C-alpha cells in the first residue's frame, strides 16, 4: 500500500467524523440538554415556568393562586407532546382525542401523540421524553410506564422550563413532575376493586389472583398496594389474594400469565386485572379453556372490548373511567401551566372547560407530588354494559 492510500485510510474515517460533527454542530449552546444532565444554558427560555415547575410538594405556603378559581382560556397555540405508555392500547388514543378536543377549544394545535409501540418495553419512553426536550415543546403530558427510569429525563425537561404533567400513571418520586392528573383516587381504586371482588366471590369469599401490567407501572402498583391494604381489613377477611403476576400489557404474555395462574391455583375463582389489556386477555383465556363457569374475570376494562365477555358471563363486573375526559383535563392543566395562567402549587384552583372546577392538592397517595383528582368510576356489568 502506498503512503497516500495508507494515509487516506486513516484520514477517511476522520474526515467523515469531522464532516458529521460540522454538520451537526450548527448551533452550539442553544437548547442543548444532554439527556439526564442538568447543565443547560437554555434555562432563560421560559423562566417563570421553570421556577414554578420544581416539585412543590413540601411547600405548604398557599400561593397567590389560592382560593379564586382561574378559568383557563385560550391564549395562543402551544406545542405539546402527549406521551402515553404505548400507542396501541385503545385507551390511549381515547385520551388523546380528549386532549385534541381541549386543544381545539383553547385555540391551540393538537399535541403530538407519540409513544413506544411495544407496551412491555419499559425503557421506550425515555427516547420520546428526550426528543421532546430537544424539540423545545412547551408542555409534556405523560402516562408513566417506566417507574423511576424517567426521573432523569423528566428532570431535564423541568430544568429546561417544560412543565411535565402526568396523567393516568405518575412519576412515583415526582421528580421533574409539575402535577399529576389522577383519574380517580388511587386508594379508592383499591377499594373499588376489593368490593367488586367481594361481589363476585360472594359472601363466603374465596381465592383470587391479580394480573397486572408491567412491573414498573406506577399506577397499577399503587392500585394493587391500595387493594392489599383494603384486603387487610376485617370486612374482606375471606378474600384471599394468592398471587400477583405481570402480563406486561402485551396480549399474549397476559394470556400466558392468566393460564399460569389457573394451573398453579386450582381453587382460583377470580382473576382481577387492573389493566385493560390484562382483563381482555384473562377473559379470552378463560373463554378458550371453557372455565368461565368457575373462574370469573374482573378489573379495569373498556366496555367495547369486554362486550362479548360480559355477554358470555365471563366478566360479570368491571370498572373504568373516561379516558377521553382524562386526556381533556390533562391538556387543560398542561396548557394552563405552560401559558402561566395557573401555577402548579398546592391550593391552586381552576376551571377546565366543560369539566368544571378543580383544585391542585398534595397527593395523599405518594410521598411527594401534587395532584388533580378527576372523578368517579364507572362500573359496568350485564345491566350496564356501557356500549
Amino acid at each position, binding site marked *: 500500500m502506498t503512503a497516500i492510500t495508507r494515509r487516506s485510510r486513516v484520514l477517511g474515517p476522520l474526515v467523515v467524523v469531522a464532516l458529521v460533527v460540522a454538520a451537526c454542530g450548527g448551533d452550539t449552546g442553544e437548547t442543548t440538554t444532554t439527556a439526564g444532565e442538568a447543565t443547560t444554558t437554555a434555562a432563560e427560555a421560559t423562566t417563570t415556568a421553570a421556577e414554578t415547575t420544581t416539585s412543590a410538594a413540601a411547600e405548604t405556603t398557599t400561593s397567590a393562586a389560592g382560593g379564586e378559581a382561574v378559568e383557563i382560556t385560550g391564549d395562543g397555540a402551544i406545542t405539546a407532546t402527549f406521551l402515553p405508555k404505548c400507542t*396501541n*392500547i385503545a385507551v390511549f*388514543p381515547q385520551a388523546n382525542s380528549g386532549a385534541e378536543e381541549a386543544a381545539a377549544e383553547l385555540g391551540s394545535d393538537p399535541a403530538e401523540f407519540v409513544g413506544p409501540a411495544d407496551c412491555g418495553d419499559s425503557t421506550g419512553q425515555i427516547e420520546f421524553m428526550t426528543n421532546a426536550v430537544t424539540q423545545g415543546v412547551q408542555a409534556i403530558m405523560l402516562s408513566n410506564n417506566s417507574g423511576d427510569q424517567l426521573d432523569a429525563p423528566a428532570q431535564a425537561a423541568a430544568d429546561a422550563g417544560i412543565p411535565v404533567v402526568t396523567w393516568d400513571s405518575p412519576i412515583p418520586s415526582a421528580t421533574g413532575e409539575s402535577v399529576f392528573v389522577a383519574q380517580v383516587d388511587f386508594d379508592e381504586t383499591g377499594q373499588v376493586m376489593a368490593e367488586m371482588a367481594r361481589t363476585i366471590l360472594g359472601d363466603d369469599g374465596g381465592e383470587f389472583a391479580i394480573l397486572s401490567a408491567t412491573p414498573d407501572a406506577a399506577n397499577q402498583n399503587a392500585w394493587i398496594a391500595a387493594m392489599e391494604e383494603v384486603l387487610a381489613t376485617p370486612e374482606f377477611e375471606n378474600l384471599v389474594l394468592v398471587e400477583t403476576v405481570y402480563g406486561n400489557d402485551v*396480549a399474549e404474555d397476559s394470556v400466558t400469565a392468566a393460564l399460569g395462574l389457573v394451573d398453579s391455583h386450582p381453587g382460583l375463582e377470580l382473576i382481577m386485572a387492573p389493566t385493560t389489556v390484562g382483563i*381482555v386477555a384473562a377473559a*379470552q383465556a378463560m*373463554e*378458550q*379453556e371453557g372455565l368461565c363457569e368457575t373462574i370469573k374475570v374482573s378489573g379495569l376494562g373498556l366496555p367495547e372490548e369486554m362486550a*362479548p365477555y360480559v355477554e358470555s358471563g365471563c366478566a360479570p363486573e368491571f370498572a373504568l373511567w373516561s379516558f377521553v375526559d382524562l386526556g381533556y383535563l390533562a391538556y387543560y392543566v398542561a396548557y394552563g401551566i405552560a401559558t402561566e395562567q395557573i401555577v402548579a402549587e398546592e391550593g391552586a384552583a381552576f376551571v377546565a372547560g366543560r369539566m368544571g372546577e378543580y383544585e391542585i392538592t398534595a397527593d395523599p397517595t405518594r410521598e411527594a407530588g401534587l395532584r388533580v383528582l378527576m372523578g368517579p368510576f364507572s362500573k359496568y356489568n350485564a345491566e350496564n354494559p356501557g356500549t
Partner: protein
Amino acid sequence: MTETIAEKAAQSGTRFLRPERVKEATLLGIIALSVVVFAFLIEGYLSGRFFNRVTTSVVIVTLLAAAQALVIFSRNIDLSVGSIVGVAAYLTGDFLAATGQGPIVAMLVATVVGAILGSVNGLLVAYGGVPAIIVTLGTLALFRTLLSIYSEGANVLAGDLPPWVLDFNNVTLFTIAGFEVRLVFVIAVLVVLLLQFALARLRWGRRIYAIGSNPSAAVQAGLPAASLVFWSFVGSGALAGLAGFMFMARAGTISATAGAGLELESVAAAVVGGVSILGGSGTMLGAFLGAVFIDTLKLSLVRVPEVSEFWRDAFLGILILAAVILDTLLRNRFNRRWSAEARKAMESSGPTAVGMARVAGGGGTADA
C-alpha cells in the same frame, strides 16, 4: 439417477435406520419421556384439559415450524414469519369484521395474504440475489411497518368478529374420555402430513433438498433453483398466513404488534426437530415434533411448582443446544454408515451413477 443409488442403499438394509427416522423416533421418545416425568411431578397432569390446551397451543408453532423448515431445506431462512402472522391475523380480522364470512373463507384470505407477502421475500431472494437473512430481516421490519400504518393504532376487537371466531379453537371433532381431538389441531397435522408426503414423493420436494445440500451443484445439474426457492418462500408465507388465522382465533383482540417474536420460536422448533440449519436435511414431521416438544415443555414447566415460570426460557435454551448437539452426533454417525452403504452400492453400478452419487451424497440425505 440419484434415486437408484438411494434405492440400492435402502435395499441394503439401512432402510428403516435412516437418520431422519431415527431422529424422529428419538424425539418422539423424548417427548414421551418428558410426559412421564411431568406426570410424576405434577398432579393431574395427564388430564383432558391439559391435552386440549397443548393441542390448541401447538397449532401456531407447528405451522410456523413447517414454514421455516420449508425454507431452511433450501438453505435459506425466513425471519419475517412473525410479521406475516401479524399482518395476516389483522387483515383477516378486519375482513371478518367487515364481511362476517365463515371459517373457510377466512382461512383462505389469511393464506393468500401470507402467500403474497411470502412472494415478496421469494422475489428478492431468488431473483434479486439478496441473501435470505438480509431480505427477511428487512421484510420483518417492513411488513410490520405496513401493518402499523394500515391499522392506525386501532385494534381489531373481539366483539367485532363474528361469533364463530372466538369458539373456533374449541371446535372438537370427537372426544375420547375427555381428550378432545380439536379441529385446529387436525388441520395443523394434516398440513404437516401433506407437506411431508409432498417433499418425500414429489420431484420438487427432492429438488429443494438438493438445492440446500449443494446449491451450485444443483444449478449445474440443471435444477430450476430460482423458481423452487421462490415457491418455497411463497409456501412459507402461506403457512405463516394460516398460522395468522389460528392466531386470530386464539387471541380475539388483535393489535398491530401481533405475532412479534414468533420467528425465533419457529427456527428453534425446526432446529430441535432435526432440521439442519445448513439445509438439505430434516423432515416436516421432525419440525412438527420439535414444535410439540417445545410447546409441551413450555406449558408443562409452568405447572411444576418447584420450577418458576422464569426457568422456562432458560431450559428451552439448554434444550435447543442439546437437540442440535445430538443431531450433529447422530448425523456424523449415520453419514459414515450411509456413505459406506452408498459406496458399496456405487461399486456395483456404472461410472455415471458414481458421478451422480457424488453430487447427491455430498452433505446429507435428501430422502425422507
